């Protein structure tokens, strides 16, 4: 499912991607799913009202499993129920809200991160990016009444970093389920319950306040909060580290980033994300026969596996040299910068702009620190859970305060 650059007239078809090899070796579309890699077809299918989410067998995205939509995160719903629930929280992710509310959270969080890094002299970069991602997502969700941010982050990580897809024997699965129930229970008691109690007394503008108002069940609240957590925290942690890695390695790009206006900084980040999308595959099932704009046919019941990586490097939309990091590409091609990296259609990532803003603020501050340097490169790992990369072990250092 890898796109091939047909004609790349400059730089001998340079390939700036860091995550392509591990993705190619590990990407696992669902058995029997039809691969889709062209940008146009991907967009048509993802935007079609005739497709439904199609997760792995047994996931809550199977229609048969969604007997009670109130207990399923809206991330996994479709149609009117999905639209209604997404619309109810749309304002939390609007550009105006980011500017008037979230940017202040991002900036103050970065103050804390910088203070921590300067006091220690060096730190694992994914630990710092995780801190930022957790605080920002927690504020949007409403997880702001925990005993401490660090403990909240650890409890969320304990739940989200576990993977049901890891192979285990029958006994191992039982042990794992008990561990998971314990971890989720801890998250409920120590993070969700105090947040809910606070919002029952005084509603705020966040997801938990909405769920309290709409009388969500305990299971429904946990599912929704963890889905936001997974989407907003885990992926942003990786995105920040990936962008930092590229900027550490490319002095000219780093100089342009630090000297550029916000729009240019976003163009750089979006172009990195085009080449290094954190999630790589999206599965959809046709609820009825579909004929796309290009005349492609998808039969009712057929599952398609949309490759974000292939769509993002489709020369029909990127122009030549699709594997080169070229921040001017999107403007030249008159397209929106992240291409398909945040998905498309009704399930496009609601927090896309939030992620871009927090990454911009994080990196703008990090690279202005005196003596900032990368002491150790990250190791690229693969997460079967999100079908995407994880970057661990990167250590950054700066001059002490």
């Amino acid at each position, binding site marked *: 499912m890898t796109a091939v650059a047909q004609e790349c007239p400059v730089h001998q078809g340079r390939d700036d991607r860091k995550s392509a090899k591990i993705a190619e070796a590990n990407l696992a579309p669902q058995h029997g799913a039809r691969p889709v890699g062209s940008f146009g077809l991907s967009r048509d299918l993802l935007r079609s009202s005739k497709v439904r989410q199609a997760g792995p067998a047994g996931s809550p995205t199977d229609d048969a499993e969604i007997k009670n939509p109130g207990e399923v995160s809206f991330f996994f719903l479709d149609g009117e129920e999905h*639209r209604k629930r997404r619309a109810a929280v749309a304002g939390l992710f609007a550009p105006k809200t980011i500017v008037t509310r979230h940017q202040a959270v991002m900036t103050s969080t970065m103050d804390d991160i910088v203070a921590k890094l300067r006091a220690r002299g060096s730190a694992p970069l994914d630990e710092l990016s995780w801190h930022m991602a957790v605080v920002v997502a927690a504020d949007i969700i409403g997880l702001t009444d925990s005993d401490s941010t660090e403990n909240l982050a650890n409890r969320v990580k304990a739940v989200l970093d576990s993977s049901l897809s890891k192979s285990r024997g029958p006994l191992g699965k039982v042990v794992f389920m008990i561990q998971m129930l314990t971890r989720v229970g801890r998250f409920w008691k120590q993070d969700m319950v105090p947040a809910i109690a606070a919002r029952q007394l005084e509603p705020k503008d966040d997801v938990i306040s909405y769920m309290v108002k709409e009388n969500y069940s305990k299971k429904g609240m946990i599912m929704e909060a963890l889905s936001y957590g997974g989407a907003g925290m885990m992926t942003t942690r990786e995105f920040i580290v990936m962008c930092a890695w590229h900027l550490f390695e490319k002095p000219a790009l780093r100089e342009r980033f630090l000297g550029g206006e916000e729009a240019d900084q976003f163009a750089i980040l979006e172009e990195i994300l085009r080449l290094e999308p954190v999630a790589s595959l999206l599965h959809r099932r046709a609820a009825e026969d579909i004929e796309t704009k290009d005349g492609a046919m998808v039969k009712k019941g057929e599952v398609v596996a949309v490759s974000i990586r292939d769509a993002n490097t489709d020369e029909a939309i990127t122009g030549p040299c699709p594997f080169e990091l070229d921040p001017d590409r999107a403007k030249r091609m*008159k397209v929106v910068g992240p291409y398909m990296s945040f998905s498309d259609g009704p399930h496009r990532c609601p927090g896309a*702009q939030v992620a871009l803003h927090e990454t911009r603020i994080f990196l703008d501050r990090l690279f202005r620190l005196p003596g900032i340097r990368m002491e150790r490169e990250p190791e690229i790992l693969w997460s079967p859970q999100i079908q995407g990369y994880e970057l661990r072990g990167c250590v950054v250092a700066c001059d002490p305060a």
Partner: protein
Amino acid sequence: MVAITFIAADGAERTIDASEDLSLMENAVGNGIEAIEAVCSGNAYCGTCRVYIDPAWRGVLGEAGEIELPMIEAAGDETPGVRLSCQITVTPELDGLVVRTPVSQS
């Protein structure tokens, strides 16, 4: 082709030859109308492709629907005739359409 005129907040006018079956937003971006940001690329999830429909055309295009309203409200934009241009499909009936664009989309 369908002639559509964009009037910027400073009064500058530009008429484009819009392609049918694409959205008004896609036509604007493709023709370099910088006041249309469309950061979600046409999914009605960002509210940064807002336009104000000229009064003479509001009857033709109608009001913003339930897909558009949450993001228009989130943008705090109460200007009469406001719509998300990503939700308007260009058809031959829109030949001569005039829209205005805001000072800022965010």
